[in-house]
Each structure stands twice: as structure tokens, then as C-alpha cells.
């Protein structure tokens, strides 16, 4: 393992300190317990709080700021944060209209946010994101994983909250965006969890992991490496099948997000976007919004995910509205 670190125990806090210094105009870092908030506390709005294990940068701290999150709670690498962080964050940013947790659907994140919610002295609700269509849903499983689509949920809910909308409306929009969003990821290499010091999985030069999770969890299937178009076609087919399964017709306006896992160059991500856009257009999907880059990473994994979000006027409005965070910025 070769990384820019001093020692594994301080890695997270040193990185967060650098983040807070570099973006002092947007975010403030709090410690014991660890959480980040906007530099300027917002007033009279639903407080939007997210969090999750570290290693997905810029998610979530990178999405704190006007038009998006009020606070974020980073856990250890790939490990859910703890309820005390979520409580402290909620107390710090609560602004008289309740607290909305946006939580990626993993047992750990769900249970920790759940316990925080149970102790929360404010009105609260939770949006669980579960856009990963690689994991086939079933009543027997804990359900689908929340991946890069979470960025779209956080952007849209954050925008609605700025308008002073109430908790129920923010929760409803979050659930709607999540329902209309489907993602799937492909890994070409494993990531390396610093504390583990070795690759999470072994993969040959001739293989890829289809449906991989953003923690390097094995995916649907170990497959043979092939051309970008062939890989992307399988991803797009999986996403379209998922929409069909959800009873949603993809022949409408859509946002396409090609997300890098951390070690894949922009040149390849744009190539994937080209391939995906071509295939989706051929299927009658009208791509009116696009986003390409590293937005939900898995440490140093080489690979990418494709996310399609079916837009309606409300989602369009809240995606396009101004946002000023370290990871997403436009309109201001």
C-alpha cells in the first residue's frame, strides 16, 4: 500500500482539517464528536444532514453548503459514523423546522442514524437512498445499496429546503428522487483500505467486477474485461431493466451521472459518458442534464458508475438551482 499518509489513526482528521482549511468560506470542522457544518448557520429551514463512512470523498462533507447540506458526519473509512456525531450535528444546525437525515442504505448507517433519530429532541425524518440496481431487491435482503445517486438526492432536497419547505415535503422529494434514480458500478481494480493495508479483493488483468459497491464489496458477477462500449451496454441494460421493474418509463428527460471511483481518469469517464449517452438516446431517453467526475468515490478504486435519474419539473428546478459546496458549485 502506497498512500500519502502519516499514520493511519490520524489520516481522517488530518484530511478533514485540510478540507476545512481549504474551504473555510463554506465549511467548519467540529471535533469530539467529529462533524462538519456550514460556516454560516442557516435559519428557518429544515436542517439537512448526511453522513457515512469516509473514503467516498467529496461525499458527504463536500456537499455541505448553501443549496445542499447543512451538516455531514464522517465515519472511519467505510464505517458508518456513530449516533453521538449525528446528535451533535443536529443540535448544531437545527433551525426550528426539524431535521432530515439522508442515509445510504447500509445496515450500519441505517442502524446508527436510527439510534440517533430515536434520541433526537427535534421533529425528524430520514430518506434512505437505494439507487444501486446491481443488488437485486428482494424481501429477504436488507435491500439495495445507496451509491452515487445519493448526490442527486442531496442536491435536490437541499435546494427545496432552502425555500423553507417543511420536513414532510423535503422527505417526499428525497424519496421521489431516490425512486427515479438507478445506478450500477464497475470496478477494474480493488481499493485499499488504509487500516487493512492491502487490496480488499484480488482481480486479474483480464477481469472486471460488475455491480461492485462503493466499499469494494463484491458485486453481481466477476466478468471478463472487455471494450468500454460492451461494459457500458451491460450497465445501461441493467439500469433500464430496473426502471422497467419499477414501472418507470425511461423515455423522458433524464440526468446522467458518470461517477469515477477515484483512480479512473476524466478522459475515460467522458468516454463512458459518450458511450452511455449514445446507447440511452437510442432507447429514447432524452438526456437534458449531465455530470461527469469523481462524486462518490471508493478510495483509490479504478472504476466508474453510471447513474440515470428520470427528471420531472420539480427535480429539474431543484437540480438547476444555485449550489455552493466544495464538490458541486453553480449559479453563484
Amino acid at each position, binding site marked *: 500500500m502506497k498512500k500519502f499518509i502519516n499514520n493511519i489513526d490520524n489520516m481522517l482528521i488530518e484530511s478533514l482539517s485540510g478540507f476545512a482549511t481549504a474551504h473555510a468560506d463554506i465549511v467548519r470542522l467540529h471535533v469530539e464528536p467529529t462533524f462538519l457544518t456550514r460556516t454560516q448557520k442557516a435559519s428557518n429551514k429544515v436542517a439537512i444532514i448526511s453522513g457515512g*463512512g469516509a473514503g467516498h470523498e467529496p461525499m458527504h462533507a463536500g456537499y455541505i453548503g448553501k443549496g445542499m447540506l447543512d451538516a455531514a458526519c464522517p465515519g472511519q*473509512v467505510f464505517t458508518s459514523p456513530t449516533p453521538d456525531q449525528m446528535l451533535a450535528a443536529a443540535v448544531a444546525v437545527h433551525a426550528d423546522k426539524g431535521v432530515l437525515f439522508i442515509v445510504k442504505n447500509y445496515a450500519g448507517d441505517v442502524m446508527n442514524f436510527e439510534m440517533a433519530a430515536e434520541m433526537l429532541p427535534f421533529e425528524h425524518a430520514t430518506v434512505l437512498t437505494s439507487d444501486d440496481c446491481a443488488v*437485486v431487491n428482494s424481501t*429477504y435482503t436488507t435491500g439495495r445499496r445507496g451509491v452515487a445517486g445519493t448526490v442527486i438526492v442531496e442536491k435536490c432536497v437541499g435546494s427545496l429546503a432552502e425555500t423553507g419547505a417543511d420536513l414532510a415535503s423535503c422527505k417526499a422529494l428525497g424519496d421521489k428522487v431516490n425512486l427515479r434514480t438507478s445506478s450500477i458500478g464497475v470496478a477494474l481494480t480493488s481499493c485499499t483500505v488504509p487500516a*487493512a493495508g492491502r487490496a480488499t479483493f484480488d482481480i486479474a488483468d483480464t477481469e472486471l467486477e460488475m455491480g461492485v459497491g462503493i466499499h469494494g464489496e*463484491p458485486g453481481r458477477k466477476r466478468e471478463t474485461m472487455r471494450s468500454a462500449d460492451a461494459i457500458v451496454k451491460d450497465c445501461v441494460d441493467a439500469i433500464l431493466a430496473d426502471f422497467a421493474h419499477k414501472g418507470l418509463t425511461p423515455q423522458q428527460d433524464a440526468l446522467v451521472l458518470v461517477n469515477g471511483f477515484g483512480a479512473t481518469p476524466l478522459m475515460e469517464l467522458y468516454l463512458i459518458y459518450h458511450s452511455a449517452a449514445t446507447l440511452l438516446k437510442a432507447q429514447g431517453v432524452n438526456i437534458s442534464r449531465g455530470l461527469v467526475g469523481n462524486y462518490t468515490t471508493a478510495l483509490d478504486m479504478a472504476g466508474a458508475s453510471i447513474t440515470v435519474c428520470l427528471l420531472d419539473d420539480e427535480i429539474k428546478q431543484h437540480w438547476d438551482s444555485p449550489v455552493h459546496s466544495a464538490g458541486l458549485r453553480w449559479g453563484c
Partner: protein
Amino acid sequence: MKTSFILSASLAIHAAIVAHEADIESLDRAIGDGDHYINMKRGTEVIASLYNELLPLPPDQVLNKIGMKLLSTIGGASGPLFASFFMSMGKVAKENGADTPLEMAAAFAAGVQSIMQRGKAQAGEKTMLDVLIPVSTTFTTSAAAGKSTIEIAHEIKQVAATGLESTRNLIATKGRAAGLGERAIGHLDAGAKSCQVMITTVCDLMIKEA
């Protein structure tokens, strides 16, 4: 169950987890995300460090404080689960005491119950519960049968090992491995492994001290 026993157990557990780094770590890497060992190490280390602070307290308060501390230390899926376990155990210990084998079994059962509630999980889902549930059952029935702590400890070690082994050929329906379907088959569950390690450690301590 005395405070001194709980605390020496916590030291022994930390040592045992560290001693099993390789297996615990590789199991979570194989069908999880590779952090279970680090989470367990972080958690047990912090509890061990509370030794002097907890020594003066009664057992129920010690169990409760251990649960609260684990809740804010471990994170992940195992954090809230182990936290709930100890907090519920402490609650029952406070209400009914935890001195006789029967009382201890009842407190343990309450802990396992709280894990099942928090995790919305049953036996057979390839989780730590596949160790905890059979252990709890044995604990209760053998205690009810009036067996000695030594006898019970020996039985439980056996049951924990069998429970762990039972996770090998299960498809996971809870936790990260739930995404894997068939691919989880053949691997033991990491949380089940750490539970078996911890339970075995406590049993050995009981046998030694009895």
C-alpha cells in the same frame, strides 16, 4: 457476575480479538468491506482503557457504560448491535440482578433480543446471531437444568463453534454480504467469528476462575 470479572473479561476479549486479526479481517474482506477487525479492535481497545474508571461501579452500570461507549466508538453495523447488547444486558442486570447462572442467562438473552430487534434479523441470515442465538438458548436451558458455570461454559464454547461453522453455507440476507447472493456461500461471517472468539474467551475465563 462481578464488575471485576466483566473488566478482566474485557481485557481478555481485546487481547483475543487482536490475536485473531488475520481471520476476522480476511472474512470481512471476502464478503464484506474489510473493516470488521478494525472496528472490533477500536471498540475493545477503548473498553479495556476504561478499566480503572469502571472498577468502582456496580455490574449493571458497567454493562450499560460499555454499551454506550461501544455505540460512540465502533460505528458500522456491529457498533449499534454490540452496544444494544450490553445496554439491554445492563438494564436486565439492574432489574433482576446477574449473579446466578439463570440471571446471567436471562441478561444475555435480553442482549441477544435487542440485537435481533435493532438488526431486524433472525437466525439463519448469516450474521453474528447464528452464534448468539444458539448460545443464548443453551445458556438458558442448561442454567435452568441447574448445571454449573463450568459445565455451561464448556457447552457454550462448543455451541458457539458450531454456530460459527453454520454460517459457512448460508446465503446472507442481512448485512453487506446480502448483496452477494450465492457468492457468500463458503465463507464464514465475520461478525459471527468475532462473537465466537469473544464468547470462547469469556468461557475460558469462567472456567479458570470457577
